[in-house]
């Protein structure tokens, strides 16, 4: 995946810089959520959504896609989601275990993303998008029942994702391919 053409090297930093804006916005989002600055929170959140759309688009347009960029993008998403939900937990909107669910899903992503043969998880690939939608719904529809529905949906999607991955891993194990699949994981080329 590391195919930064020599001529585009000078633009290689641009997508990551856009991604870095999302990380930088996270503590600001925590502040605005903590102090119930509704309009500022919404603006910041929309800004971070914009950076999430822009960084990948820029990387493809400039021909500077990289493994580091992909991981940085996912990590920035995780930082932002974790920050927003931490603020929600501090406000008592969501319970603490929501953070454990999100953290475990990210850890699962990091551990399995380097496999040559991707894990079959039709739900998990949209998990990040769902969490962003969940943040938006919580901000735009501040209602106890709506948030409870969001919470149960997060729990349901997490369980569905874990089940699909577990079923896939079980099928690999039954076919004797589990060990070789894990051994094929590439850990050395995150530059």
């Amino acid at each position, binding site marked *: 995946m590391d195919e930064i053409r020599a001529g585009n090297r000078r633009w290689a930093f641009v997508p990551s810089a856009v991604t870095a804006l999302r990380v930088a916005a996270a503590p600001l989002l925590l502040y605005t959520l*903590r*102090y*119930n*600055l*509704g309009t500022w929170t919404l603006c910041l959140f929309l800004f971070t959504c914009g950076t999430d759309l822009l960084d990948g688009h820029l990387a493809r347009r400039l021909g500077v896609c990289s493994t580091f960029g992909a991981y940085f993008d996912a990590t920035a998403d995780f930082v932002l989601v974790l920050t927003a939900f931490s603020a929600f937990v*501090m*406000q*008592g*909107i969501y319970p603490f275990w929501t953070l454990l669910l999100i953290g475990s899903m990210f850890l699962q992503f990091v551990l399995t993303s380097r496999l040559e043969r991707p894990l079959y998880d*039709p*739900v998990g690939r*949209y998990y990040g998008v*769902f969490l962003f939608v969940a943040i938006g719904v919580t901000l735009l*529809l*501040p*209602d*106890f*029942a*709506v*948030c*409870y*529905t*969001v*919470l*149960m*949906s997060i729990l*349901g*999607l997490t369980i*569905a994702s874990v089940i699909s991955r577990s079923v896939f891993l079980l099928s690999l194990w039954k076919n004797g391919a589990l060990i070789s699949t894990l051994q094929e994981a590439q850990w050395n080329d995150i530059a």
Partner: protein
Amino acid sequence: MVLIIVLAIIVAACALSYLWLNKEVVSAIEIRNPEGDAGTALVVYHPGQSDFHDRVTSGFAEGLVSNGWRVEITTASPQAPTDLSGYDLLVLGGPTYWFTPNRPIRRYLSRLGDLGGQRTVTIITAMGAGERSTSIMESLVREANGDLVNGLLLYRMRPNDDDNYVDSDQNQVLAVEIATQAAKEIPLPGE
């Protein structure tokens, strides 16, 4: 297929939230200031899943007690008193779910039938959007021939004082203080 799974999870979460959040809670009648002779108030509320409405209701009750009221507090259930003849004030309240007053308090109000001009206060709590809920509650009281003395709307997430932005914890403390002060301003029977 993925869309169907996600939609199924969300629909199940909606149903779960509706059933779980609107589950009636049965509790014994708690009496505060049993020797109070300024008047007797019946406070009936739905506690919800957090302690926010509990604290607001308790703050309101303490405000009444400080003015010499005898206060009887219980939760909205089939066991809550429906004979209002011994009460000078009825206080109804609970959280907002799906932008409307919670079902237990609405069911209790319908069990009361005609309020016969009973002096009534409504206390509605919400995360950030409670205007519709409080408007519905006040209309229901008037339709039941209640004499609406005051309708309180207090927020958990949205600032309770637009001129003074505080963090979430202080915002909830402020909500309790507003409820206590509002109770102190309730005219005594005969005034």
